[in-house]
């Protein structure tokens, strides 16, 4: 499904601030695989996601999505196949437009956008049904502006927008990090439901070690631009959060005391 080969990304090349963000990363994901990504700040997790999404272009290496080379494809073209939810709840929606209008924009992903009406009656009914599935009562507020929603509601909406047209790949960049713990929990559950229901190939960055093991089918750990651990299947089922933290200290050589990692 997704195949990344020898991906290299260097920021500020040739200057004193040169930073190797991705150092020969290789990653292959199968259809329906749900990978959680952990690693300290600056490990290259977000850079990896941004390179897949096309926000940054790779310096070398290539990215295949469904056997199609997307390495040099502009961000907006890749978005036809890739759904994204960002860390900042403000990033995923247009705040001055209604819930319905936001969904309509997402629902037209990958289709031509001409001068036909933006929202038909049938669209409206579909949006209402999908919003009801979120269980947040948003189906009765479709004409309200998104600016009036809470962070958690926005992330749930963004999640729906990212999956309303089935993407080939779903990228989640710490999408619950800015939320209250209870709401974060709910958004994570929703994420899990949607991924399972649509059998989506998903890459989720998280700072929450427990969530990294609890959700998904495979976990990778990154450090200094490399993937330093990759576990799945039986091996992953037997792992505890404590073991993961220990590995993190050993393999990454980083003390966790001053890190942002969550161990809840």
């Amino acid at each position, binding site marked *: 499904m997704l195949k990344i080969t020898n991906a290299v990304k260097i920021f500020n090349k040739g200057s004193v601030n040169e930073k190797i963000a991705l150092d020969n990363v290789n990653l292959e994901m199968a259809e329906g695989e749900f990978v959680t990504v952990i690693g300290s700040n600056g490990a290259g997790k977000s850079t990896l996601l941004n390179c897949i999404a096309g926000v940054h272009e790779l310096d070398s290496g290539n990215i295949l999505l469904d056997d199609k080379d997307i390495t040099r494809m502009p961000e*907006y073209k890749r*978005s036809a196949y890739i759904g*994204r939810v960002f860390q900042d709840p403000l990033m*995923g929606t*247009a705040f001055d*437009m209604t819930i319905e209008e*936001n969904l309509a*924009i997402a629902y*037209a992903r990958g289709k031509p956008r001409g*001068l036909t009406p933006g929202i038909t009656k049938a669209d409206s009914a579909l949006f209402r049904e999908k919003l009801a599935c979120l269980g947040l009562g948003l189906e009765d507020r479709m004409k309200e502006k998104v600016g009036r929603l809470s962070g958690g509601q926005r992330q749930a909406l963004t999640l729906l927008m990212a999956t309303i047209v089935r993407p080939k790949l779903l990228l989640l960049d710490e999408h619950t990090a800015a939320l209250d713990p209870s709401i974060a929990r709910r958004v994570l559950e929703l994420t899990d439901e949607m991924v399972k229901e649509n059998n989506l190939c998903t890459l989720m960055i998280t700072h929450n070690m427990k969530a990294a093991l609890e959700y998904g089918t495979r976990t990778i750990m990154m450090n200094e631009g490399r993937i330093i651990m990759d576990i799945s299947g039986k091996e992953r089922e037997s792992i505890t959060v404590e073991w993961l933290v220990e590995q993190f200290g050993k393999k990454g050589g980083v003390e966790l005391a001053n890190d942002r990692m969550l161990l809840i």
Partner: protein
Amino acid sequence: MADIFKSATELGIIYAIMALGVFISFRTLNMPDLTVDSSFTLGAAFSATLCVSGYPVIGLIVAFIAGCAAGCITALLTTKLKIQPILSGILMMLALYSINLKVMAGKSNIPLSKILGIPTVFSPFYDTKLDRYIALILSTAVLALIIMLLYYFLKTKFGLVLRATGDNDKMVRAAGVDTDFTTIVGLALSNGLVALSGALLAQYQGFADISMGIGMVVIGLASVIIGEVIFGTRSLLRRLIAVVLGAVMYRFIIAGALELGMPATDLKLVSAVIVALALSMGTIRDKVISLAGRQAAMSRYKGGGR
């Protein structure tokens, strides 16, 4: 007095077309576009030149197209060459000054007055029963048509992403849309409307002048903001109508100030002050509220008295 009222309304309606253009760049694309100052004159220049050749209606159409082209170039400077939006607008404003003079065949003023017998869209109705009202009727008809088309357009699939571009361009790209393209279309449409407004104004007031566009972007902003503050921003239709009412109100404020004896040369100063006040209204209100809150708390603390 009634005449002042009438001409302020007529001017307000013509300027409202320009203000709708500014609404598109400033509000839906979130980009203060200074091209407006020159594309307004560009429209007037084409309109006046074609009137002199005997084609007033074609003059309006050509003006709109020329405005669209100007907006396209500004957008290309911003999106493809990555020049800051404000600077792109300033560059286009400067470049268009020379172009406008070329369109006007090197003259800085083209008169279209009744006495010269040059046709305008209004001239067939001179000395008929409609003479007194034709300016109001025609410009209102044009404005109503534009609002209808614009309202429909902004609700289409493409219109939705155009509106979202100014809100959150990252989200628009994540939805698979080229934000460069939406910016180009938005600025083209915006400047097309501005030029059309200038074209209509030239035929209405009976001349095109090279300096008639100076400060136009400020007048447009003033209209948009006055409209929003007084009439609200709840729905799209309400926003569009608020812009029109804002433009008319602005004309009334100016007409009132002139009537009270303000010299016409102070107009631009007054316009700038109105916009500065309108833009800072939110901040000033917050400051006043927090100051009032603090004083109330203080007086409670001191047991009422000061």
